[in-house]
């Protein structure tokens, strides 16, 4: 699937990723929020299909991220359940800013597209190319083979399509 208007697609994903960051109580939009947004956006086309084939819909990714958070805290002997404060009221006006992993993702997306107009699959590749950080750890904990998934995503880009 070729997205004719990538900037428009990207804007939609960024808006959705901002919502995911807000839901997360995160001050920054990070690669994991982009991944959630791609998975939830039907306009992502083949990228959604590749994720689904690996068992990754939005809910599964969210669960994997929560698991990674708990796992990383447990590694230093901390359990988030120990703190029984009522959770803070989410701020409806907070506008999370792009974080470091978000910027790296965009750089990798542009590099993946190699001069061509990026497609949703390039954006997903930009996320999957990170070797360290929250996303690769969450995927590894879920038993997803990141290299295999990336190869699948890459193949969707080479399938013959009719350009409009």
């Amino acid at each position, binding site marked *: 699937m070729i997205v004719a208007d990538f900037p428009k697609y990207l804007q939609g994903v960024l808006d959705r990723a901002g919502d995911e960051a807000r839901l997360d*109580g995160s*001050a920054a939009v990070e690669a994991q929020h982009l991944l959630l947004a791609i998975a939830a956006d039907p306009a992502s086309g083949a990228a959604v299909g590749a994720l689904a084939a690996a068992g990754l819909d939005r809910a599964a990714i969210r669960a994997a991220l929560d698991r990674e958070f708990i796992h*990383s*805290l447990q*590694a*230093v002997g901390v359990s988030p359940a120990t703190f029984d404060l009522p959770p*803070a009221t989410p*701020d409806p006006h*907070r506008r999370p800013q792009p974080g470091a992993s978000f910027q790296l993702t965009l750089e990798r997306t542009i590099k993946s597209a190699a001069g061509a107009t990026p497609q949703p699959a390039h954006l997903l590749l930009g996320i999957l190319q990170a070797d360290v950080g929250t996303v690769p750890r969450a995927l590894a904990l879920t038993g997803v083979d990141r290299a295999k998934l990336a190869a699948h995503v890459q193949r969707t880009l080479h399938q013959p399509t009719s350009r409009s």
Partner: protein
Amino acid sequence: MSDDVLPRDPGDALASVAALRRLADQLEDAAVEQAMRAGWGWPRVAEALGVTRQAVHKKHFKRLVAAGVTLRRR
């Protein structure tokens, strides 16, 4: 902290730092809201957190107003 508790893999250790920062942010939001609902003023919350009054005000004022918390001026 004993050596047994420290993760051996650098990636694990760095991920723990990232997760602790996130947890600290969540706790700060929750604890500041709880204190302000209990009638604490900005200077007291700031001193308890170990940050300046300006910093705590800038970070939390709008959120607490949106949450409908009655804020004390001092």
